């Protein structure tokens, strides 16, 4: 099976004041379809920047990113946008829901953007199913500010899932949540991967979250420092990962 994601010597350089900062430097990696991969690392190590590059939100200063066979780093903005629309779903730390829209309308946005009317037919069924899968049935008419933080993040997750994108990208999705609501989100991501066959790329600084992954990359100063293979496990216990990190002196 060809990899769904591939990074080839990717560097992202920011100009800060008079000097340059390499937020990501010389990263090469592959992610196979159906894998659950996590990026760990301290704050400022370049995790978010790398995730944005992998999802086609940003463009590397040098190197290439291949998303589902397409050289996304060389595509025009429009082409990259269309590729994102078809292949990816994003979940952010700060939910990024649209406050004026209802829960239903927020979840239906990917259809709206794709020019499909989500009030009827198959798209409507998909919205309903996505909401049910995050246990939000009955809250369709609520507005985001009427929901708890955990519920808001579940809306954002349902929105990312609604069109069954091949690749789910999540940046600290549990960063603003308490432990138990965080766990609900991670469980849902894991089942999309394990049962739905979707690929999940998760950025986190929390070992308990990273423990859901099949593989964990450890980032440091913009580079991949280590790769820890955990394999697929049903229990998500963080013990093994914590032990391996300790072995690495982290």
């Amino acid at each position, binding site marked *: 099976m060809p990899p769904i994601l591939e990074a080839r010597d990717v560097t992202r350089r920011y100009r800060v004041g008079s000097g340059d900062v390499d937020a990501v430097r010389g990263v090469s990696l592959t992610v196979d379809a159906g894998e659950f991969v996590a990026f760990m690392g301290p704050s400022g190590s370049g995790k978010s920047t790398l995730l944005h590059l992998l999802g086609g*939100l940003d463009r590397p200063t040098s190197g290439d990113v291949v998303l589902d066979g397409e050289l996304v780093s060389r595509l025009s903005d429009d082409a990259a946008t269309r590729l994102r629309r078809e292949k990816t779903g994003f979940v952010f730390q700060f939910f990024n829901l649209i406050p004026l829209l209802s829960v239903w309308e927020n979840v239906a946005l990917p259809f709206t953007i794709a020019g499909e009317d989500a009030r009827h037919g198959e798209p409507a069924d998909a919205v309903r199913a996505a909401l049910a899968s995050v246990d939000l049935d009955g809250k369709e008419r609520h507005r985001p500010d009427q929901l708890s933080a955990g519920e808001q993040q579940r809306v954002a997750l349902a929105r990312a899932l609604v069109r069954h994108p091949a690749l789910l990208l999540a940046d600290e999705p549990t960063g603003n949540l308490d432990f138990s609501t965080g766990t609900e989100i991670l469980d849902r991501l894991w089942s999309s991967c394990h049962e739905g066959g979707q690929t999940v790329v998760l950025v986190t600084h929390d070992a308990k979250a990273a423990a859901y992954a099949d593989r964990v990359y450890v980032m440091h100063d913009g580079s991949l420092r280590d790769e820890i293979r955990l394999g697929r496990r049903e229990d998500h216990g963080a013990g093994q990962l914590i032990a391996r990190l300790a072995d690495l002196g982290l």
Partner: protein
Amino acid sequence: MRALDALARRTLVARPLRTILTIAGIALGVGVLVAALVLNAGLDATAERSVRDQLGRTDLRVAAFEERGLSAASLGALATTPGVAIVAPELERRTYPVAGPGSGAGLPVPVTLVGIDPAADAALHDRPLAAGSPLPLAGGDVALVSDALARADGLAVGGTITLNGSAASGPRAFRISGVLAAVPGDPDPAGRSVIVPLGAAQSLVGTDSVSRADVGLAPGGDVTAVIASLERRLTSEPYTLSTPGDLIAALRASTADFRATIALVAALALFGGAFLIFNTLAMTVAERARDIGLLRAAGMTRRQVTVLVLISAVHLAVAGVVLGLAAGIGLAALVTALFTPGGGVLGIRELVIPPAGLVLGAILGFGVTIAAALEPALRASRISPVAALTARLEQTAVLRARLRWLTLVFAVVGVAGLALWPGAGEGSAGLARPLAVYGMLLGVTLVSPFLVGPLGTLVGALARPFLPVEERLTRSTLVRDPSRTALTVGALSVALAVLVALGGVAATTRRAATAWLTDVIPGEAVLTSIRPVALDEPQLADLAAVPGVARISPIGRFAVSVGGRRLDAAAVVGADLLADGRLVLSEGDRAGALPALDAGGAAILPAAVADRLGIPLGGSLQVLAGREIVALRVVGIAARTIPGSSGEAVLVGWRDATQRLGVLGADVFAVRYAPGQAAPATAALAPVARAMALEPASLEALAGTIGASVDRLFALLTALAAVALIVAGLGIVNTLTMNVLERVRELGFLRAAGLTRRQARRLVMLEAAVLGAVAAIIGVGAGVLAGVILAALGAGPGVTYDPGWGSIVLALVGGVGLAVVASAWPATLAARLEIVRAVQYE
């Protein structure tokens, strides 16, 4: 306090665009208000100066009522009246100069001939010369020509000017001894006047009487005493007396409509300005709720928060008022420059800056700004630190409350502003219009939140087939928050409403002027004469004999004295009006009344005159003619009659006019063409008319300068409305930009989820287009409504409202266009948005 002030300054500087817009809003309101006050003062000063130019040091003007003028006997009586020191008689006539050999065919341009007594005249009037010397005291065939005439006809000192006189005297040549300096107040409408010694003028036109006499009183003389003794002594002819004070008051009264309109525009500008100020201040507070919450958490008291917002408002007010005062004076100077050359009723000849007006403008500017800032200031103080930190502000409820407050501010501003308006107490009718329109705009602002939802959906539906994605995203955001949308479109819809209202009123006024004339003149064209043409002149038959001419109906306009007051009158052929179907009587029987005019002893009164004199149908109108009083039976009352020089004319038959009221002939001939013959007959009539010194004119020319000054006035008002529109456009740029900035995260997510740059751009532009269309629809509706109210309060009965389709189309296209243009910058912001930054940080 000082720390708060520094903080307030910081926040203003941090958002330069918004700060500038708020200042522009205040400046607009204050500027137009001050301009209006300056213009008002200018009109007053002009009235005084025009009278001074005309009368010089005259204390009392005695004017003849009839064309026969004041006799030598009257002048003698005048001179011997106790208290009278100087009597300066003048004879004024229009005549044609004899064209020089070089001039082309056709009639030369007429001149106004003024005969004066050089010695007496010099005591009362200054007639500065540009060249040459004054008239010799001895008299003779010597002339002073006006600067305009000298230029136009190539005359110079030492040359001659030959003038046509009466049939008996024939043309006569005058040696030009001087050219008058160009000063305002020339008796000729085109500034073409010729001043000659009285005796020479009298023998030229074949009369021994004069048109008027200007009187200078002896030192310590009392005008009232002189007037009283004149009433006993001057008995040979009817006359009118006017003092400089009377004339100034009359001139001022004639500009009442213009002033009322200026007040209206000022009210509208104030409304628009207040709206803009309130809008921006309220938005600033809503946007900074979080910061304010943090300040509260850090220990700032509610009171300090209120003071903080108010200090910002004071800064804005100071800048806005200063700018507004300067802009207002500039605007007034511009208008003055624009209106000076035309002169006439609406002439404004000098820029007078009334200190009280500047103070009023400044007070209102400050007041409105502070009033508009009060609600946001109080609201800011009520922001709880907790609510701000958890970012859970109920925006919709906030905006509802705002709208309620807005109503109060506007009501107070409207009433206070109009109550303080100079002279507001005198004419309640003048004040009714601005108040009605103000109230209507307020109503529109209040109901528009309920309209924007449905209207937005409706307009959006039009875009759906072309931009389905953008339309769906737009609809959800616009419709979701109608209060905010209403505030955004408010300024634009108010500006458009003003534009449409002015367009409608202009169109209706113009229509009224024309409708009036077609209703009362028994013809589709007129021929005018500068001298009365006696009805028995044989050439008149030639006119009627021109092929294609169905009827020529003579009209003689003159003045009568009724109860010591001057009234316009016109002699008409009743049978012609009857046959032509002209003249609508509100009381009386047309078929009986019109023939009764021709039979004699009867008159038809304009409704306005009947009301003023309190004469009912069947009553008697007592007209002073010579030494006796002629009684005319009122056989009809008409809504509208033929326009005279200062009002509508009392209609009488020719028999009465010539035999009892001293009318010498007709000065207007109404021409009715045979059906379908208008074009050839007009051409055939022209040479015949010219041979009789008759000039073809349009019907509107009869109504004097009404049409032209209406057009000029409304062009000016439209320009002001356009200024308001520009400010409204800036307001939209502001709100749309704020929309984009506030929604950076949303847009960031939409882009991440697959919205292309072009779609993001089109999303913002479509939003703007929908807002513009909604504003245009509301604005046009409100404007038509306001126009109907204005027209109902202003125009006479029976005039149907003409909405002025041009301005409606302009408002619709302009509203949408302006909004789309205004969205260019925010749309670019949206398209250029860096997704990564937008989604990442809070």
